[in-house]
């Protein structure tokens, strides 16, 4: 299984001047295969998040195409694209996106509970995962009582609960201490070994799990592509 990006661009209207436009991503092509790891790194505002959101099917490119099997993102309706995300995509957002009224445990389960999975197995998987990430003591806490790092770990748990085929993580270790970051990257490596594709957006070239594709991005364009080894 592969997600193919072909000359993908995203253009926004400038929030300052409505007449001018910003090319957040400009003509990027890359493939994401299951069992691979990819890190895209660059400074703030370079287009990492925009690219990651397009690849994960959350937003559509302005031009170019992203293809998964026979699914062409730009030609696909909301219903099919939602089903695709639900079935194949795990997503860790850059900023805290947790449901403030629900507990950590409920936050991990809720978005994954809409179809095809039994609630009992989801609960059991969530307990195991929270334990693995040393979050068992926070399970009944509300998101507003968590630190930045804990919130990030909860979002990671939510994204990988159903072991998605493609995991897109935006700055997943940015607020974590070294031990937690290692724990998360080890978990990502394990997912990769089990056949998931891991795609990370980061400020720095973060290589993990061996044979990671490293893409440098600047002003919406890929400026360098290398292959990194173990972290």
């Amino acid at each position, binding site marked *: 299984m592969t997600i193919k990006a072909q000359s993908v661009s995203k253009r926004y209207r400038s929030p300052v001047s409505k007449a001018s436009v910003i090319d957040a991503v400009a003509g990027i092509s890359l493939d994401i295969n299951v069992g691979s790891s990819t890190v895209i790194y660059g400074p703030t505002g370079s287009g990492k998040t925009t690219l990651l*959101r397009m690849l994960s099917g*959350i*937003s559509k490119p302005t031009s170019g195409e992203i293809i998964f099997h026979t699914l062409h993102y730009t030609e696909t309706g*909301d*219903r099919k694209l*939602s*089903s*695709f*995300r*639900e*079935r194949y*995509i795990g*997503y860790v*957002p850059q900023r805290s*996106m*947790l*449901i*403030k*009224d*629900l*507990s950590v445990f*409920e936050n991990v389960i*809720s*978005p*994954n*509970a*809409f*179809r*095809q*999975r*039994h*609630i009992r197995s*989801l609960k059991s998987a969530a307990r195991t995962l929270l334990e693995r990430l040393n979050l068992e003591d926070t399970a009944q806490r509300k998101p507003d009582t968590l630190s930045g790092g804990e919130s990030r770990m909860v979002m990671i748990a*939510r994204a990988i609960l159903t072991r998605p085929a493609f995991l897109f993580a935006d700055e997943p270790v940015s607020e974590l201490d070294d031990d937690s970051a290692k724990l998360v990257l080890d978990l990502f490596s394990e997912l990769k070994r089990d056949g998931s594709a891991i795609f990370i957006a980061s400020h720095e070239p973060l290589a993990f799990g061996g044979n990671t594709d490293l893409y440098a991005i600047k002003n919406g364009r890929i400026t360098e592509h290398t292959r990194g080894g173990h972290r």
Partner: protein
Amino acid sequence: MLLNMIWLSLVNIKRRTLFSVLLFAMAFLVACSLFLANLTHKLLSLPDTVEFRQFFYTVLYSVLAVSALMLSAISAVSTNLRREEYAILRTFGAQRSDIFLLAVFESFFLCFFGALSGILLVMLLILTKALYIPYFFEGIMRVSLYRLIGIGGQAVLLSVLIEVAVSAVLLFLILRKDILELERGRL
């Protein structure tokens, strides 16, 4: 799928205690006032009860109007405050119809049980004469059980419909937007 939806609904009801209690209470009031108004129409039909009837109608329809308005307002505020949650669920692949169904389940649980408990309480108060309304006790004994269930059912249905309709209209407006706009919190 059904079990998951029930679990999600109950979790949301439990975690939003303030809104849940308010919606429950308003459904309770809507059902009570409508039930009593229908009983008034049924039981106070004799010419010598005209004044009683007019008094009851004034009070009950006022309560009905205010509580229905409150139910709609609380439902609207509650739905509107959950835009970011809907963005999160949509990001993870929930369909618009899934979110709509979840809202219907929550509304149904709260309003159905709120309205039902309102009607049962009214019946209990009348039958134990704790709520003494002239002609009611004697009259209610003559009404068939099926007719009473019909009048009660109508009141429950109206409560549920008000809440479901208001949240459905708002959800339609909110969920038209794409995920990024939902995240930014624009309606």
